């Protein structure tokens, strides 16, 4: 076992993990953060996307020990005081989900896209989401939601708004 210290959604954790533990399993099984889901076995689907030091990663393809000393934000860390993050709100408003399975990862990656390109073209949105698969929506309303969120200025705010060492600029929206 190896001891790791990780900040997740603004809370500091220190835990013993087996080195082979995947970050997604640490989040779900040890921290109970089941908002982040597993959708494939090949790191293709993007459902497990979280932010590691403010950049999107597929948490099924990162070891928990690699996150030692780093800052993780999951879908569960986005809402503030009962208010949805603008990207979550936009997905809700635009009907950007059906079964919802891809949604946690889709939202985390959509925020990453806006962090890189605050005012993206439709193509930049589609290319930015190429590592996230959705079997229901046909992507159309997802693209609309990202456009709405961009209009609302949702370019930052993946960080849980604590003093943790996120590399994201700006204040949480």
């Amino acid at each position, binding site marked *: 076992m190896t001891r790791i210290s990780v900040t997740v959604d603004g809370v500091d954790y220190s835990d013993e993990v087996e080195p*082979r533990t995947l970050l997604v399993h640490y989040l779900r099984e040890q921290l109970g953060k089941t908002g982040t889901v597993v959708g494939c076995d090949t*790191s293709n689907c*993007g459902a497990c996307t979280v932010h590691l030091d403010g950049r999107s*990663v597929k948490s099924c393809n990162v070891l928990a020990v*690699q996150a030692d000393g780093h800052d993780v934000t999951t879908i569960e860390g986005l809402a503030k005081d009962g208010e949805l993050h603008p990207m979550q709100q936009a997905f809700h408003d635009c009907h950007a989900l059906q079964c919802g399975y891809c949604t946690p990862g889709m939202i985390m990656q959509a925020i990453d896209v806006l962090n*890189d390109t605050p005012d993206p073209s439709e193509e930049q949105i589609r290319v930015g989401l*190429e*590592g996230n698969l959705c079997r229901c929506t046909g992507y159309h309303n997802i693209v609309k939601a990202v456009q709405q969120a961009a209009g609302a200025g949702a370019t930052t705010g993946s960080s849980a708004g604590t003093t943790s060492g996120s590399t994201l600029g700006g204040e949480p929206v």
Partner: protein
Amino acid sequence: MIPASFDYVAPTSVADALAALAEAGDDAKVLAGGQSLLPILRMRLNAPEKVIDLGRIEELKGVSEDGDHVVIGAMTTYADVLASDLVRQHAGLLTDAIAEVADPQIRHRGTVGGALVHADPAGDVGAPALALETEFVITGSGGERTVAAADFFQDLFETAVGEGELLTAIRVPKHTGWGHRYEKFVRVSHQWSIVAVAATVRVDGGTIAEARIGLTNMGSTPLRATAVEQALVGKAATDEAVREACAAAAEGTNPPSDLNGDSDYRRHLATVLARRAVLAAAGA
């Protein structure tokens, strides 16, 4: 799926990493960005006893300039290479190709060194590295040696990096002012190259003065299309002249046949993609 159990160390210097490698011998596996290795471990295609994580070795990260070369540390992520003005300015072919690798999440973790040592023939970094005549800095207990690109890729998933050694950096000769284009052919977004062509050319008064062409997935290693390179020299950068020169793009290749296309189809693709890549690189 979950990997088999392993011991884990995360050294903070190359010296400590080499010592850990020497101690563990062939029971150890080096972990870079993990974007190829972790899927392999999860599928239990490999089960090392020890994993040596290079992720905390700062000296292996970053892009710098050394005279006529751009030096990229092995642990520099794709994302950091994409953000590098030095690379864009002096080795734009690498920027073009890396932009086509996988997806943003994987580019945030995957490293240039990991990609090159993994040496998947369908990987997008090998062909541009070869075309740019990159030098590979390999470090072992006996010190450092530099290997030319032509000698680095040896076979399917095999490189000049030996047991107990690490790739520590690549040195890319500056191709300042050269045009560049990576033409990657896939059927769906976010796919490995069926075939891709990496082209960089120096155009002088509308004439191609020098050309370097690398091929992805046209054999067990990345390949140079030397016949095309030679045929292009002195040619006008016009569709007709480039088309003629690029007809030789598949010469000397041995592309695979699989569900995405048989080898004849790949040979044809290579000529088409080479023409497109060269014309775009030449600004025509």
